[in-house]
């Protein structure tokens, strides 16, 4: 029972706040789709519209080819995992998981089997008699997932499911969620503010900003080929140098950008650059990890190390170019170091590693 979900020109306003503005996305059957963005970008609103807790002001929500705008949440057959898990404190684990099946009038014998199976999947079989307040955060999170999965939902909705867990457990649970999702092949929409989480598990990512979708693509796509400055800066922490376009080469998709009198950088434009022209204000984004260890290139600079921080696996530097521009750079040890403060080095920056983007 694979379902395709679509938002078609959806707009939602709360009072004077535009939570969603003309959002259109399609989520494919069996896909693990991540919605990511800073707080207030509308990702949770979008999820709640799909769950049916909000109605769109305009536009439509579709499950396969059926419009579900007016379908109440309890008839949508979505399974939702809430940020705070929302486990019912007056029911034990078994009763929590059984609830959705009871609502669907699943026969008791069938019910028992399905609950056992789902508790096995989340590895919580032996906790069936416990009450939520007797479980750790990670365990509660597994039960919340089991409760949503047991009804075999058409769509699984996850609202910041890992934000209440500690860092280590987060990493463990996110691959767990992907494992289960792939095993059961449920169309899944997952909301998070954490871009590393999104990159790590998504089939596709929608990057959202102030109520609209900035870009949809695979993790590699949105990270390496961001369509605008927001996506580039939200995914990762790249260096950013502002300037104006000097010239554009339409054949190669490269542009020369003047940062100041003494510095001109050649970088690559996004795939779609028809709106870019000479004199435009742009930013040059350089990923921290793409500065060190490049092949010989025509574009190279002398840089002075002003800060150096050894972090075991990696080495972090702050570099100053001769014009005063500051770049932060990261490299894996042992090849990245050691350099000490005061050292000068030559850095190679091929145009391919510099992303030229407009707001």
């Amino acid at each position, binding site marked *: 029972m694979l379902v395709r979900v679509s938002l078609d020109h959806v707009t939602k306003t*709360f*009072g*004077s706040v535009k939570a969603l503005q003309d959002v259109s996305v399609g989520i494919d059957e069996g896909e693990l789709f991540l919605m990511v963005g800073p707080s207030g970008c509308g990702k949770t609103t979008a999820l709640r519209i799909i*769950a*049916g*807790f909000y109605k769109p002001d305009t536009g439509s929500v579709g499950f396969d080819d059926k419009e579900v705008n007016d379908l*109440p*949440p*309890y*008839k*949508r*057959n*979505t*399974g*939702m995992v*809430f*940020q*705070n898990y*929302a*486990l*019912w*404190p*007056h029911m034990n684990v078994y009763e929590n998981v059984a*609830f*959705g099946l009871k*609502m*669907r009038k699943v026969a008791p014998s069938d019910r028992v089997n399905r609950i056992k199976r789902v508790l096995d999947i989340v590895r919580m079989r032996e906790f069936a008699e416990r009450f939520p307040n007797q479980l750790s955060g990670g365990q509660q999170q597994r039960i919340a997932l089991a*409760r*949503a999965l047991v*009804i075999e939902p058409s769509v699984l*909705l996850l609202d910041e499911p890992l934000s209440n867990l500690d860092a280590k457990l987060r990493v463990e649970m996110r691959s767990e969620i992907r494992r289960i999702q792939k095993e059961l092949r449920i169309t899944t929409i997952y909301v998070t503010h954490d871009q590393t989480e999104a990159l790590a598990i998504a089939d596709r990512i929608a990057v959202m900003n102030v109520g609209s979708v900035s870009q949809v693509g695979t993790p590699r796509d949105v990270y390496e080929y961001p369509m605008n400055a927001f996506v580039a800066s939200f995914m990762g922490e790249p260096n950013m140098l502002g300037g104006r376009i000097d010239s554009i080469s339409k054949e190669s998709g490269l542009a020369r950008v003047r940062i100041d009198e003494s510095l001109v950088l050649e970088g690559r434009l996004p795939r779609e650059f028809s709106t870019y022209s000479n004199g435009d204000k742009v930013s040059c984004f350089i990923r921290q990890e793409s500065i060190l260890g490049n092949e010989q290139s025509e574009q190279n600079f002398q840089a002075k190390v002003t800060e150096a921080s050894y972090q075991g696996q990696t080495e972090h530097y702050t570099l100053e170019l001769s014009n005063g521009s500051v770049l932060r750079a990261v490299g894996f040890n042992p090849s990245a170091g050691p350099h000490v403060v005061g050292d000068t080095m030559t850095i190679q920056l091929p145009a391919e590693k510099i992303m030229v983007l407009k707001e």
Partner: protein
Amino acid sequence: MIGFDLKNLDTKAFMIFLVIMAFFTVFLFYPMAYVFESAFVVQGKFTLVFFELLFTDRFLTEALRNSLIIGVTTTASTAAFSLPLAFLCVRYGFPGKSWLQGLLLVPLVMPPFVGAIGLKQVFARYGSLNLLLIDLHLMNPANPVDWFGGGFWGIITIEVLNLFPIMYLSIAAALANVDPSLEEAAESLGAKGATLFRKITFPLTFPGFFAGAIIVFIWAFTDLGTPLIFDFSKTIPAQIFSMTQDIETNPMGYVLTIVTLLVSVLALLSVKRYVGLRSYEMMGRGQHVGKRETDLKGWKAAAASTFLILIVLLALIPQISVILTSLAGQWFQTILPTQYTTQYFETLVTHPVAGPSIVNSLFYSGLSTIIDISLGFIIAYMLARRRFPGRDILDSVAMMPFAIPGVVIAFGYLAAFSRTPLNAFINPVPLLVISYAVRRLPYTLRAAYAGFQQTSVYLEEAAMNLGASPIRTMRAITLPLIMANVVAGGVLAFSGAMMEVSDSLILAPQDQYFPMTKAIYALNLRLTDGAYVASALGVVGIIVVATCFFIANRLLGRSMGELFRAGG
């Protein structure tokens, strides 16, 4: 604040809102408006002539002065009592503390005027105390002291003894709520002992302190039963009561009702404003690092226990003397009864007024509690879960009965509905039930609202997400989670209705409709065995109410005290 546009209007919620407002319009605004009109309008013209009359009438101004003095003195005395008591109980541990703390709440199970009947046995001119003093040759038998000061000081004494637990609960809760890190910060800067208390701790308890003070003040200021028992008619409520006799012809009853209302509302508003300006709760609390409770040892522990025992004994004098009176076969001109009997309890069963009054009270209170629970639940649900225009209005209207004294509502009902089918002189039951319900609605509303607030909306959404309709969700998730709150609020509303005095005294003119409190009042007027039968009935009331409190306490745990503090 989220704005409202017609397209997104929650129509169902708005309709329910209108229905509820209609109820309040009929049973709250209309009677009040009627009273105002009768007091201010003569032959279609606005006039202040009756108020001039009030302030030139020496008898009435004295009554007003008396009532204000009763209110203020009671408030000040309960505060003086409760502050050291609360500090002792919150900050120190000593033997017997939990028992004694529980006993401190006992006075709440009885309205002050029932205690007054008992108190008269002990402190009257030839009551137990004076007889004891005469026996000890400490007093001249020919000229015993009048402890009640003509009734006036008797009223204040009984109000203080009965109402101080409310003050105590408020202050104790406020004290327990003070963030220890705030005190620790002051200590680290060099404040300690009395300075710490005066500069930091005490000011931080102000919101709770004033919330308690206002309840005590309004209660004492508007108490009708106690002055009647002491036969002290020079108070405003007693005057209002006597003016119900000629409610059709005498405008002064309306004027006094308005004065009572204005004083209460003004007092409440000024306190609310003051407390509102000093709402400290918004500030985050530091991590709770253990309680600041010191265990007392040796003579200090003994002193603390003794102090508390003395206060408990003092507070229980009215209750104990009511129980003694109800069991006294012979108690005339002796320190303690010379014979004991259960005959008055037997009388209750056969007595034409007493017996039925118990049934009446249970019936009226039961009905009013059903109204309170349903209405309180619906309003709490609306306030906590729905967005609709008028939400703030509903919030303040539903809590209004806190500020409107019983005597005001009762007088308003009696007057406003006199020419309608609800006329209390024909059949007082509907108005009695509704007045109980309106007066106690804040209890159930608060309790249910607290329940909704403690229950995350996500718990409900999770159920809907898994296929439960809104009704199913309410039944399977919301209700079970807030049931304890709702029932506890209901139990308190019920016991409150059982103890309701002003409404009962004013709204039930005929014997066969008497609720218990009115029966106690009426029986006490009988010369022969009046006080004894009245006390026996009072004891029945104490048992019912004490049972209610016990249940509510079990259901709500420690938070029961919060419902008494209330205040909005």
